């Protein structure tokens, strides 16, 4: 079997382990085993990628993993159990930012990702995928930062509402999608980076009208976004591990936030549109 097939098979094993991890976390008896499956799946996904021929230099990678991993473990061991929702929000912001950076890397050096056509332009399909990935990643990042700040009490948990808010968000959303469309005909840096900047603003504006009491639902929603961002980038890089896992996280995160709304007897749309749930946790 050639290397490419081996890699794809290993990614499949990792994806199955992620499914079992999510399943395992659904009930107390299987939850610990589920978490182990998740770790194993991640180890296989990372190990497989590192062994793939695209990776020829290890020093910086090892350094980055060691620094990031140490910070992560330190935070995880020190954090108070009561601060869990904001910790998850903070972690999401990192995934969002990582997604923006990976999309940015693919945009900066498309040749090394095999994304160039004969004329030396980035494939139109790849432009759509990388711009959507960057946009959703940026929304995830700034949205999660706000969610974190609200849960941590750094800013008031009260919903921030103003006249015409939904219209403004709709306008910005349309403008962002317009930039994605324009990026297909013009691959200049200003288009890509304006889109990223606009998406940062949009993520911020989408979350400020939501009250602190509804933040756990929002955190789960943002989790879902980070999955869609990963899937978008998976399409760009033709990477099955990213596509499968991104879709899995995207849909399960959305369902989980729906279940949480039901549990609180709240309407999903009211929570997402915001202006309700002025709150409690930011005391």
């Amino acid at each position: 079997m050639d290397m490419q097939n081996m890699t794809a098979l290993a990614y499949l094993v990792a994806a199955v382990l992620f499914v079992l991890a999510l399943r395992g976390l659904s009930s107390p008896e299987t939850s610990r085993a589920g978490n182990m499956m998740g770790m194993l799946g991640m180890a296989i996904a990372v190990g497989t990628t590192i062994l793939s021929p695209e990776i020829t230099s290890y020093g910086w990678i090892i350094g980055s993993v060691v620094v990031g991993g140490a910070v992560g473990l330190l935070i995880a061991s020190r954090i108070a159990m009561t601060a869990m929702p904001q910790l998850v929000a903070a972690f999401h912001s990192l995934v969002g930012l990582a997604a923006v950076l990976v999309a940015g890397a693919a945009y900066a050096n498309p040749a090394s990702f095999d994304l160039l056509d004969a004329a030396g332009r980035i494939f139109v399909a790849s432009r759509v995928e990388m711009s959507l990935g960057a946009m959703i990643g940026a929304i995830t990042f700034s949205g999660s930062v706000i969610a974190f700040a609200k849960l941590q009490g750094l800013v008031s948990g009260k919903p921030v509402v103003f006249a015409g808010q939904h219209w403004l968000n709709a306008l910005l959303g349309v403008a962002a999608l317009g930039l994605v469309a324009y990026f297909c005909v013009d691959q200049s840096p200003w288009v890509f980076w304006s889109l990223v900047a606009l998406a940062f603003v949009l993520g911020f504006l989408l979350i400020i009208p939501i009250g602190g009491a509804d933040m756990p639902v929002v955190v789960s929603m943002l989790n879902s976004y980070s999955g869609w961002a990963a899937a978008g980038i998976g399409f760009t890089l033709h990477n099955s591990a990213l596509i499968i896992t991104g879709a899995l996280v995207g849909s399960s995160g959305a369902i989980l936030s729906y279940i949480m709304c039901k549990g609180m007897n709240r309407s999903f749309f009211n929570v997402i549109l915001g202006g309700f749930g002025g709150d409690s946790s930011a005391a």
Partner: protein
Amino acid sequence: MHGDFVSQLSIFVLAIFVGYYVVWSVTPALHTPLMAVTNAISSVIVVGALIAAGPVDMTQAKVFGCIAVALASVNIFGGFAVTQRMLAMYKKKK
């Protein structure tokens, strides 16, 4: 190229359905741990970051890739570790 896209789209759509069905039966007490583990799993974006960080030459892509690897690593190690801590507490309480 096109056949390739369709097969990628197929696994994407099927994975959405798997994600949809897999979490419906979660017990309320496990919402937060489930969220934490989903978060850890979403850092699979590290795969893309590693590919960006892979080449020998120090390009903009490599710099972005290395930063993304570090950010995702915080999330991977932190996410799974914190889930384990939560689950350990859950067991003690029983």
